[in-house]
């Protein structure tokens, strides 16, 4: 007997990149996630996801309404994208009610009230991200803020990244299915699972030795640490250097590009300009270059 775990995925103000990233899941594959019991005896019943679902229009909206009615307190709500709140939240809408469009904020709140737990997928949903970048034209807010404003206290897990690595989403869901909702000590202050976001990029970076020696790349393609080309690895929590991306093929620094800090609440405004060196940041300093007072190499 396979237990069905209902999941509803709402796309708010985002770019669909989080969903495309999930399609890139390699182990399990996306087919396994959609079709097969993802852990023994349990299947994620993805009832609503507007990029992949067969149905459209009213029949799709009815799936949402039926889920709230029939699966109260038993479904997981995943959200990608931030929630636009400015000007009566009209900047993102989905479906009609009595001939009037329904804002994504209202859809989200209706679904959040009766959810078992909420997953804020991607940096827009978790922290505002690109959608809330200055001057934040649509008043975008992260999921947490909208929940607080509405007085909804449901378990919330942030799975940031622009986009998140598919393993971060799949691993978080599998952990809930196997071990139940995460305890406080499983998450960091930003509600990110420590299993994936527990260490700085900088701590595990294969170019770390260059940093400690003070050998810095001056232009793309150079050998050396990318710190002076704007790398935000020293302040960014994620396991990219170990996990690598796209089925372990490569990762940002592996392609000679600086990390842009996309899993952080500071992304994008406080980590931009992306190609400028971090300023006013306390860096871990070990190695001869730093102890000798940063003489030019």
């Amino acid at each position, binding site marked *: 007997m396979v237990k*069905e775990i209902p999941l509803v995925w709402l796309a708010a103000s985002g*770019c*669909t*990149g989080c969903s*495309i990233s999930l*399609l890139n899941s390699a182990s399990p*594959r*996306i*087919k396994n996630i959609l079709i097969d019991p993802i852990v023994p005896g349990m*299947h994620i019943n*993805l*009832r*609503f996801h*507007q*990029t992949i*679902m*067969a*149905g*459209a*229009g009213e*029949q*799709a*909206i*009815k799936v949402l309404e039926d889920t709230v009615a029939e699966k109260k307190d038993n479904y997981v709500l995943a959200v990608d994208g931030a929630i636009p709140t400015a*000007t009566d939240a*009209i*900047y*993102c*809408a*989905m*479906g*009609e009610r009595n*001939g*009037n*469009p329904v804002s994504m904020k209202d859809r989200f709140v209706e679904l959040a009230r009766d959810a078992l737990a909420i997953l804020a997928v991607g940096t827009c949903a978790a922290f505002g991200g*690109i*959608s809330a*970048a200055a001057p934040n*034209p*649509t008043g*975008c807010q992260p999921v947490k803020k909208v929940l607080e404003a509405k007085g909804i206290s449901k378990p919330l897990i942030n799975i940031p990244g*622009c986009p998140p690595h598919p393993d971060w989403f799949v691993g978080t869901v599998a952990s809930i299915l196997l071990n139940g909702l995460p305890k406080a000590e499983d998450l960091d202050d930003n509600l990110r699972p420590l299993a994936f976001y527990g260490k700085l990029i900088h701590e595990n970076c294969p170019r770390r030795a260059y940093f400690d020696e003070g050998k810095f790349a001056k*232009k*793309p*393609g150079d050998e050396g640490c990318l710190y002076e080309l704007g790398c935000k690895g020293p302040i960014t929590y994620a396991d990219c250097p170990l996990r690598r*991306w*796209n089925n372990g*093929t*490569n*990762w940002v*620094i592996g*392609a*000679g*590009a600086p990390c*842009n800090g*996309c899993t952080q609440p500071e992304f*994008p405004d406080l980590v931009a*300009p*992306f*190609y400028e060196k971090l300023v006013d940041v306390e860096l871990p300093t070990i190695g001869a270059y730093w102890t000798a007072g940063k003489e030019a190499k």
Partner: protein
Amino acid sequence: MGRIVIDPVTRIEGHLKIEAIVDGGVVKEARSTGNLFRGIELILRGRDPRDAQIITQRICGVCPQSHGIAAALCLDSAFGIADKIPDNARIMRNLIHGAHVVQDHILHFYHLAALDYVDITDVANYEGKDSALNSIKDFISRGELGPFLPRYEGDYRLPAEINQQAVAHYVKALEIRRIGHEMVSIFSGKIPHSVGVVPGGVTSTPTVDNIMSFLWKLRTLQDFINNVYIPDVLAIAGAYLDYAEIGVGCQNLLSYGAYDLEGRDADLTQRQRLFKQGTVSADLKPNELDLNKIAEDVRHSWYQDSSSGRHPADGETKPDYDKQGAYSWTKSPRYDGKVHEVGPLARVAVTYAFGDPMMRKLVDSSLAQLKAPASVLFSVLGRHLARALSAKFIADAMEKWLLELKPGEPTFVEYTIPEESRGVGITDAARGALGHWIEIKEKKIANYQCVVPTTWNISPKDDKGNPGPVEQALINTKVKDESNPFELMRIVRSFDPCLACSIHLITPKGRDLAQFRIV
């Protein structure tokens, strides 16, 4: 008179609403409304110009790489280095963009469009040994069929065995498109939102190791395109031949061309490209591309009429919420004063019309298999066929480019950000003609404008009253059952709309569509 509202339109990127006024079972009027506005162009103002390449990818997570390429070309041009990009970098950009677009075409056909034609429930009766199909059979027998049901019913025509095979290909295609993204990652770090393409070139370097890795992933894609994707398109075409005459559209096609074959001409309209730059109409006679012929009309959009008819580089956005006769927040880009469709059909047809021998062979042999004249290209099926041929054309070219890479030679040229400058970057994204325009003042972005494929395709009526391409394709369509308007979905999806890209500005009154409710 009846009003059909489809909101959300699913299996596309983003938030789209389609409304159609139907009389006697025939669409008399059609309107498309974007339901999400993010204001990325406003967010770009005042930032370091180099950041445009990172931020504009976030316009769309389905086609980020095309935005990254257009932004890099635009910044190269503004920084005065458009003709100085090293060959290695030009080729690696082509490979990064090409791998992304090929996987996007496969994703569109199998995962966005196919469920309109392929009945997954036939797998319930599967009796064979294919493990993927048997797991889907188990899935169906458990009785919770989300996200594959509900759906519009009433026109699934393929025999059970063909449906079963197509479902197996749906599953296989999930893997193939993932491999396409792995190819992007080889040279560009990760995807969605890759990091390798920057103004000045690329950040990574070619090695024998990564060339070989790319080559063999490419071979996997080519095998799938030749032996599965193209045959599937032709098989579905055979069962749905009426769709070779449905969704004809405006029959004017525009391509910016894509994949630079040389990098010495700073003028991107003159550069040798794999897909050619230009326009064609029903007669398939080619015309050269002239970017000065682009103008954006706003008479039927909620902007002041005084801003109508401007070139995007000098575009103005002055909202006018109460304007009579306006019904969209999308402007109407027009070329030479005429409605133009963009997309794989456009770039395939333009390249064909300019006489490219490989493209001639591809198109002619496919039409021969369908025993159909070139006129069927202008249709729902024509768009799907052109998309598949676009995938093959790019994939086959990539194999040659890979071997032109020279490990050890430069991939980046240095530059300084100018105090003041303007730039333009044009390419053909998966979904068609994509242009970025930048104005730099005091080394910062003063203005950034993106005119994206879906804006061309879902645009409202222009100043002359001519409906946009999707609207024209919907009008006069017969709808068999107004509660299951699958005809309209098939037409809309054949354009592969990408809404995140197309909606630049929307305001409160944009929600008020009361004036059309002539139910």
